[in-house]
């Protein structure tokens, strides 16, 4: 199913499109405070950019850029960032996920600290969603083998 087929138009367009997709995904995550978007949506676009590369090239091209080990670590890293920010609030003396207390460790006032905490957890959500999307797609598309042409 996932094979390296020679079509220069598809390959070139996907190669040129991918960085713009990823920049747009980062914009969606970082601009979630002011416009529609956030961690889930931006993470989905980031994952889709890698899936586009898998479809246009092959699995090995993507695994060179995002190895399976790194991908699996990033799956849990996002949740750890999220829960870690919550735990930091707990350690600093507030309730779990009460970001206002973060003004003690960040150089902003209490209200801005809430926005910063929100941004932090959006980044965590984005990382998890991206890695899980890539992982699920690679596993299903290659039948769990993670090599090209596993399912013909």
């Amino acid at each position, binding site marked *: 199913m996932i094979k390296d087929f020679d079509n220069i138009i598809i390959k070139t367009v996907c190669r040129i499109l991918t960085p713009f997709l990823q920049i747009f995904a980062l914009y969606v995550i970082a601009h979630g*405070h002011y416009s*529609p978007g956030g961690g889930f949506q931006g993470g989905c676009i980031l994952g889709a950019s890698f899936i586009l590369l898998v479809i246009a090239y092959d699995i090995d091209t993507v695994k060179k850029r995002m190895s399976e080990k790194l991908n699996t670590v990033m799956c849990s890293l996002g949740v750890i960032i999220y829960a870690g920010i919550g735990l930091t609030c707990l350690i600093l003396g507030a309730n779990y996920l009460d970001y206002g207390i973060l003004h003690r460790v960040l150089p902003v006032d209490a209200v801005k600290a809430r926005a910063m905490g929100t941004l932090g957890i959006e980044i965590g959500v984005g990382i*998890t969603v991206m890695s899980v999307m890539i992982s699920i797609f690679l*596993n299903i598309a290659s039948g769990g083998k993670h090599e090209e042409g596993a399912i013909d």
Partner: protein
Amino acid sequence: MKVFALIAVIITGAALIYSTFEMPDWGDAGSPANTHVSPRYIESSIKETATPNIVTSVLADYRGYDTLGETTVIFTAGMVCILLLRSKKDD
């Protein structure tokens, strides 16, 4: 047996449809959803969280614990997919 199942489905569906007649109108300002916490979010979310997008402030700040659960659900889905599907090369 199929007849009883059909009757049960029809009765349940009729009850559900009947209950929708009691629902508040679309955009009704006096409905419970628009009078309980929504005014507080609209009035004070930018003062309390400095986030102009109310959806983001509700999702990540007021209801942050809920979103942590959603993220964990996605994480669990990815892990289960790896556990069920991933196989070694020489299998």
